[in-house]
Each structure stands twice: as structure tokens, then as C-alpha cells.
């Protein structure tokens, strides 16, 4: 059941509606069953391989994001799930059913398109009623449910307008209402916020997330904006070159990047050259930035191996007492960005690292000052070259 009084009506002939009566709070995405599964899916276009060997399980009720630069295969994956493309190899299952050969219009998924794809010849209300009309829902019920869906996205007052008379953000809401009105099992969102300005995008992010929680529908979201992915998702699949290179929660992706590429793609990262000195079960000692540092965890390469040491700018400590795991650097530049200060340091080995700290109003050190920078062993990560 939808906790909101303005929500979609409960009586629905659609078989999926039963699921909507479940309170979303009881659906722990971790234990919930799979709703979309890709098994060994390969997609080739003529000579170009868009997806190579994709195995993916998306769970009931989660906000799942596919993140990556353009051309990484995220949109192809979405189109395969929607049914606009058929896989070259492998299987796609939706709600346990093999839909590999099922055409788009028979799949229980709806899409919010990047360009919204509203029908220009229909009013806003008729656009939203469209999925119900093709499923032959009787007119009074159709109109009632379309209005309810429009109210859900706060577009009730625009029912009689044409799509061309709406702003981008408003069209976006209508497209969302149209995709939700038939209570799909899975909602696919193809960079839906890409065309909106920053402020509106932030608003819509929060609203989409809240709506997903409230309705308990599985959202599969495609974006190239890592910040958007981090703020909204339960889990993120980071893609590159037609493959998933890491699938994790936002904090997992940020704090435990599996490779240098992930560390670099997600958030800001300092990446400096380092050399392994020793490694055992207690931790690894490396030589980097003109000093020696302890890194948590073992690294199975012999001493002397050249590696990359990565750490986040906000995890660099300035208080010497906190730990003795520190190196010295000269403060070269301070960048003021409102809430934060970014301090660039030149290290003894010539590398530059950025330290980020809150603009707390405390005294700012002078440029050129030699400062001790400290690191907690678990904030440092080692990647092979």
C-alpha cells in the first residue's frame, strides 16, 4: 500500500499491484529476491561488442544504478532489459521468467527516457493515461488513475496542457507519472536528469529517491554523474568497456575501490607512486612521498614492487598527535571553495597531493610552510601499476 493519500488507487487489475500493498520498509534489499537477472549476456552490434559477458542480479525494491562514462554499455544494458534490443548471447530474466525473446511491449518494465519522449499530440493527462489505454482499462478508472499519478508528481494542475507547453522539469515529472501509472515491476531510468539544470537536478534526485522508497518499486537508473549515483543508489555497478568493473554500495565504492580506475572515477583521489618495503598479515610498509607509511592489509607482491598509493583528500590528517604514520610536505596553494578548503602540498619526492578540510574558521597555515601530514593505515590503498 502506498502510505500517501494521493497515491495510486489500490484496486488495480494489474497482477503486479499485489506487490505494491507490501510496506516497502519490510523489504530489505539485501535479503529480497532477484527481480532482474542477466546471465552471461553478450551484445554485439556488427563488429562492435557493446557488452561482454554480463552477469548481474538486481534485487526486488532496490535503487540500482549503472554508472560509467559514455560508451561503457550502461544504456545498452538498459535497452536490453527494456526489450528494445535482444541479447546476442545469454539470458535475461525478469521476475524469474526468461524474457530474452519477449518484445518490449510485453515486459513488466517501463522506462523514463532521457528526452522524456512524451507524445506531442496528446494532452498531459492522455499521455499519462496511455499505458492504461493500451491495457484496455475502462475510461473512468483510467482517468482517475492518471490523475492520481499526476498528483503524485505534483503535476495535477497541468493535466490539460500539451507537452510542448511544459518546461523540461515538468516534462520530466509527466514522463515519470506515465511510467509509474501502470505500477511496473521495474522502472528503468535512462539519464532522466541529464537535461535539467543543477538546482532542479538536486531537487529531482531527492524526490526520485523518496518516491522509490515510498512505492517500493525497483529502480534501475543509468547515469554518468557519479555524485548522482552516490547520493541516490542502494547499489552501484560501475561499468567500463562493456563490463562491470565493480558492483558495490555507494560507501563501498568510495571507501574500498577495487582498482585505480574506480578510485579515480569515483570522487577525488590522490594517486602517488610508491614502493613496497615489506608486507605481512599485520599490514604493508611502503615508501612514498619521501617517507615510510603503514598501510592496512597485506599485499601479495615482493618487496621492491612499484605500486600506486591512493587516498582521499579529506582523509589526510593535519594533527600530528593523531598518529605517527606521517610524511612531510610543503604547502603550495590554498583553494577556497566555500564549505571546504583544498590545500595542495608538494612532497619530498616531487608528487603533489591535495588535502581537503572543512572551512571551520580556524587559522589557515601560511603558504610555503613545511607541514606534517598523517594517514590512518586503513585510509591508504595500494593498487598495482
Amino acid at each position, binding site marked *: 500500500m502506498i502510505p500517501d493519500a494521493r497515491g495510486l488507487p489500490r484496486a488495480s487489475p494489474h497482477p503486479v499491484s499485489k506487490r505494491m500493498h507490501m510496506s516497502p520498509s519490510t523489504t530489505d534489499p539485501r535479503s529480497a529476491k532477484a527481480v532482474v537477472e542477466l546471465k552471461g549476456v553478450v551484445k554485439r552490434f556488427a563488429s562492435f561488442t557493446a557488452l561482454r559477458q554480463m552477469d548481474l542480479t538486481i534485487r526486488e525494491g532496490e535503487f540500482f544504478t549503472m554508472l560509467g562514462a559514455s560508451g561503457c554499455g550502461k544504456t545498452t544494458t538498459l535497452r536490453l532489459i*527494456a*526489450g*528494445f534490443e535482444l541479447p546476442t548471447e545469454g539470458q535475461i530474466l525478469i521476475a524469474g521468467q526468461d524474457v530474452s525473446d519477449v*518484445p*518490449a*511491449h*510485453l515486459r513488466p*518494465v*517501463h*522506462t523514463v*527516457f532521457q*528526452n522524456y*519522449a512524451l*507524445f*506531442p*499530440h*496528446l494532452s498531459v493527462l492522455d499521455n499519462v493515461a*496511455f*499505458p492504461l*489505454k*493500451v*491495457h484496455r482499462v475502462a475510461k473512468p478508472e483510467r482517468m482517475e488513475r492518471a490523475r492520481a499519478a499526476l498528483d503524485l508528481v505534483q503535476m495535477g494542475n497541468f493535466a490539460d496542457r500539451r507537452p510542448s507547453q511544459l518546461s523540461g522539469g515538468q516534462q520530466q515529472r509527466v514522463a515519470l507519472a*506515465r*511510467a509509474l501509472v*501502470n505500477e511496473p515491476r521495474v522502472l528503468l531510468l535512462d539519464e532522466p536528469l541529464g537535461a535539467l539544470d543543477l538546482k532542479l537536478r538536486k531537487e529531482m534526485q531527492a524526490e526520485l529517491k523518496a518516491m522509490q522508497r515510498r512505492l517500493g518499486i525497483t529502480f534501475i537508473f543509468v547515469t554518468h554523474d557519479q555524485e548522482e549515483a552516490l547520493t541516490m543508489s542502494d547499489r552501484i555497478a560501475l561499468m567500463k568497456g562493456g563490463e562491470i568493473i565493480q558492483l558495490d554500495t555507494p560507501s563501498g565504492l568510495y571507501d574500498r575501490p577495487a582498482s585505480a580506475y574506480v578510485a579515480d572515477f569515483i570522487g577525488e583521489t590522490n594517486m602517488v607512486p610508491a614502493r613496497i618495503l615489506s608486507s605481512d598479515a599485520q599490514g604493508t610498509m611502503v615508501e612514498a612521498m619521501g617517507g615510510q607509511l603503514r598501510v592496512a592489509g597485506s599485499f601479495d607482491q615482493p618487496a621492491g614492487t612499484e605500486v600506486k598509493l591512493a587516498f582521499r583528500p579529506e582523509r589526510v590528517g593535519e594533527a600530528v598527535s593523531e598518529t605517527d604514520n606521517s610524511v612531510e610536505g610543503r604547502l603550495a596553494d590554498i583553494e577556497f571553495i566555500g564549505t571546504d578548503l583544498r590545500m595542495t602540498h608538494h612532497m619530498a619526492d616531487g608528487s603533489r597531493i591535495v588535502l581537503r578540510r572543512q572551512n571551520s574558521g580556524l587559522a589557515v597555515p601560511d603558504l610555503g610552510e613545511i607541514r606534517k601530514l598523517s594517514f590512518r593505515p586503513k585510509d591508504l590503498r595500494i593498487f598495482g601499476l
Partner: protein
Amino acid sequence: MTPHRAMPNWFVRRFVYGISGWVTLLSYLFMLLPIVVLLAFAFNAGKSTVVWTGFSLKWFEKVVTNRNIIQALQVSLIVAVASAALSTMIGAAAAVAITRRAFPGRDILSAALAAPLVLPEIVLSVALLVFMSFAGVTLGYTTMIIGHILISIPFATLIVRAAASSLDVRLENAAADLGANEWQTFYMVTLPQLMPSILTAFILSATLSFDNLVMSTFTSGVGTTTLPLRIYSMLKLGITPEINALGALMVLANVTILLLVMSRYLPLILKTNRR
């Protein structure tokens, strides 16, 4: 000095921009003047189409009471509506098929549909006449409607095709995504968007048929004399203001239809004028 010296600005402003407007205006005047004269003499009281003798509506009265003319008008309307309807239907179907689907022989079909555009109408007409008499079909409505379809189908196809190829495929994707099957997608999404061009194709086809003389000459039978054929045979007996009056009525009808169609597009056309 370079041979391609730029023209001075005042020259461009004065003559090129200034004159082009006047040239257009004068050519239109030259083309429209005969029609103005024709319209004026429709109201002449006398029997002459050159000497003005006074104002009268009697020629109009003669036209609307002339049984031959009324019958010819009826024939023309039947043929125009029937041939335009069929030609628009076939043309729209072909246009959608050509732009939406890849099938063997698509390019051949597309060329065949445009062929009547470049073939001389008289050749087409003679060929059809020979074919019909060979097949043993009596000349009449059927032969004339087929002939007129042949004339108007390239235009109908081209108009609908232009609209169909500029349709957004993503909208059809969206319809399928929302659960519409191919037929529902066609009549709920594709067809409504093509409707303006289909209407335009219909009106153009009907006009082409209504004005047609050559094809009608070869394909009309006994009792299926169209209005242009009737006017042509009246001319053989000498020009009277009755023809002027008939012409005036036809101009009036055409302009009315044109304005009805234009009222839909006029705001758009005016918008593109200002730059």
C-alpha cells in the same frame, strides 16, 4: 585588382534586396492580372468578354442553372474525392512502409511511386487508354479514377513520406515500452502525428484531380464529362461570360479550400518569414 571584387554595400542594399521584392511583385501582377480581368468580366452585362457594358449577375444565374455544368461538377467532385481518398491511402501506406521497414524491393517501390512525376502525362494517359481497351474495360468512372490516382500518387507519397521520415522513432519506442503492441503504436502514436500530412496529401490530390484535363480526356467515358472537359468543349463554341462566371466560382472554391488549410499553417509560415 582581383576579378571578384566585392560589390559595394549600397549596391547590395539598394538593388539586390530592394529590386528582388519588386521583381516578385511585378511577376505576380503579370500572372494574376488575367484572372482579375476574367473575374471582372464575369459581372459584365453584355455578351462580350472585352467590352464592358454594365454590371450584372445573369451569367452566374446561367451557370448554376446549366444542367450540363452541374452534372460535370458532380462528376468532377466524385472523381476528385474518390481518387484523392484512394491515392492518399495507398500513398500513406507506402510512405510508412518505405520509411519504417526494410523489405526486399523497397528502393524499387520507392522509385516506381515517384515515376509518374517525370513521365509525360500524355504518354501515361495514352498507355492507360491502350491498356484499358486491351483489357476490355469500358471507359467511365473506374478508368478515370485509376488515371487520376496515377497522377496524384507521387505527390501523396512524397508529402506523407516527408512527414514520416521526420517522425521521432523514440516515441514509438516509448509506446512499445508502455505496453502498446505494433498496431496500437501505429494508430495511437504514428497515425495521429501523420494526420496533418495525410490531410494535406488528400487536398492536394483532390485539387490535382479536379484540375486535370489531359488524363480525363483519355479516360472519360459517356456521361463522365468532368468540369474542365465541359469548359473546354464550351470554348469550342465561342467564349461567353458564362465561362468567366464559372471560372470565378472555381477560383472562389479553390481560395476557400486554400484558406481553410492555410488557417492551420499560416501562423507557422508567418513565423518563418521573420528572421
